[in-house]
């Protein structure tokens, strides 16, 4: 681990720690509306000012970070597992299975992603708590985000299938599912790691994008998406620089993930 990566680790730890301690750092909570002080600049009471309806931006950043930083890895895990199962298994079984899985993947890739998410969200029951909506949003992202990785895994698993060691293991009498789990899967691990680490920033950004469309995490719960939405229509940086804190935080966190990712790839190689 080089010093940059140490720094990245420290940054992530700090951000995660602060967001987990949100209750202590911002006791006012993320939903309280200080209606007499809307759109306020930073002050002692509100370190990052307040938003359009007078909610403390610092509290919202902390709680939003908690949501994005906890749920994005969960979604990444889901999509990685799905990619492993669908891509890996299809590749390992080969033939018709691989063709079918690739057809499904192609279909998934060609589907209008955003439209699908919007439809999926529209089909959800209306009375769900913001917490559940946050969870569902990220799980949807995870559920839809497996395709690209599945392609890679399918090809990798396909080449593993005809590899000497799988043939050797078959000749030793191992049953099919042992071959898959014991011999194929461990060799997909580097790809899976990469997929997992890449997905985290991707999902954070996707939720931010959905949030900008008003389709992410439900009010009053904050997420990086809803915080970034404030930047919409902001004409110049100089005007209200504190509004950029969520953006800077997003960039810093995503960069940190990238730095760690390059380390993971180094290990895998």
């Amino acid at each position, binding site marked *: 681990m080089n010093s940059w990566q140490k720094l990245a680790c420290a940054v992530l730890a700090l951000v995660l720690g602060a967001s987990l301690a949100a209750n202590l750092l911002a006791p006012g909570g993320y939903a309280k509306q200080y209606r007499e002080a809307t759109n306020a600049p930073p002050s002692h009471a509100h370190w990052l000012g307040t938003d359009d309806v007078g909610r403390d931006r610092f509290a919202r950043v902390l709680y939003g970070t908690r949501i994005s930083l906890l749920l994005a890895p969960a979604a990444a895990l889901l999509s990685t597992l799905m990619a492993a199962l669908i891509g890996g298994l299809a590749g390992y079984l080969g033939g018709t299975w691989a063709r079918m899985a690739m057809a499904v993947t192609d279909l998934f890739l060609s589907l209008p992603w955003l439209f699908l998410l919007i439809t999926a969200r529209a089909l959800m029951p209306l009375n769900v708590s913001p917490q559940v909506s946050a969870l569902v949003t990220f799980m949807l992202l995870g559920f839809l985000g497996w395709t690209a990785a599945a392609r890679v895994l399918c090809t990798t698993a396909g080449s593993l299938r005809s590899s000497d060691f799988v*043939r050797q293991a*078959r000749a030793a009498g191992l049953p099919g599912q042992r071959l898959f789990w014991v011999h194929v899967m*461990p060799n997909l691990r580097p790809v899976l790691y990469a997929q997992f680490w890449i997905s985290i920033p991707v999902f954070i950004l996707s939720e931010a994008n959905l949030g900008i469309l008003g389709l992410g995490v439900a009010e009053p719960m904050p997420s990086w998406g809803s915080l970034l939405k404030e930047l919409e229509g902001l004409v110049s940086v100089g005007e209200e620089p504190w509004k950029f804190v969520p953006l800077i935080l997003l960039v810093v966190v995503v960069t940190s993930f990238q730095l760690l990712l390059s380390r993971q790839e180094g290990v895998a190689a």
Partner: protein
Amino acid sequence: MSSARQNQILLSAQLSVRYAGKQPVLRDVQLEIQRGEVLGLVGQSGSGKSTLAMAILGLLDKKRAQTEGTIRFQDSELLQLSEHELRALRGRAVALVLQSPLSALNPALKIRTQLREAWRAHAAGGTTECANAIRASLQSVSLPADDEFLRKYPSQMSVGQAQRVLIAMAVMHRPALLIADEATSALDVITQSEILALFRDLNRSTGMAILYISHDLASVAGICDRIAILHRGEIVECGTTEQIFAHPQHEYTQRLMAALPRILPANPQLQAKTEAAAAR
């Protein structure tokens, strides 16, 4: 070779194989392996040796390779067996050792895991039995059976060690037949002779038959009882090692002989014959 053993036929095959959309790779190949014997199968690369080995183990992709004929092994007809029955046979009654130990061992798994999986494929015993079996098989190939060694990954071993691990894995269940497909071709000369010696010892001590496949006539000479020559999908000649070296009948065998380095075999009489064949 006792005459009693000679009469016991372990495997007798007569088969043709063609891959989808291609000329047949094996054409009515007839092969007999007797209990406890070492049969060499020699042919240049692409002649169909591996295909034959795979066909015996039932490992050819059924959709892409069409196999016809019979393979009698012990009391069963292999081509009639279900995948399930074949699996029970693989590694237990018939084992395989592949050419390159580095690619035949899973790079992502520890030696222990790979041996354990091989053992568990045919044994229901607990961890102690497993550990004992692993130890015994490693000892039989003269490898250390300690924890440090078992924790190693293939990349942390020498090629020779890795090949021994493969052989240990193959002999774990005391198969009646071991198929070594170019098991020594990728090795340097010294390791090659060590492994050859190991095969010979195992053959002697356990009495398992070996189908020793190689493209190199020289390497089979020292170990095989009999040799079959495979040329363009057909067995063109089959006889005892002495016969083959002394009186190669087929033109192709003669050419193979001619290509041999002269210092081999050790028998000067044979060498003279070989030179004579080469001169012709």
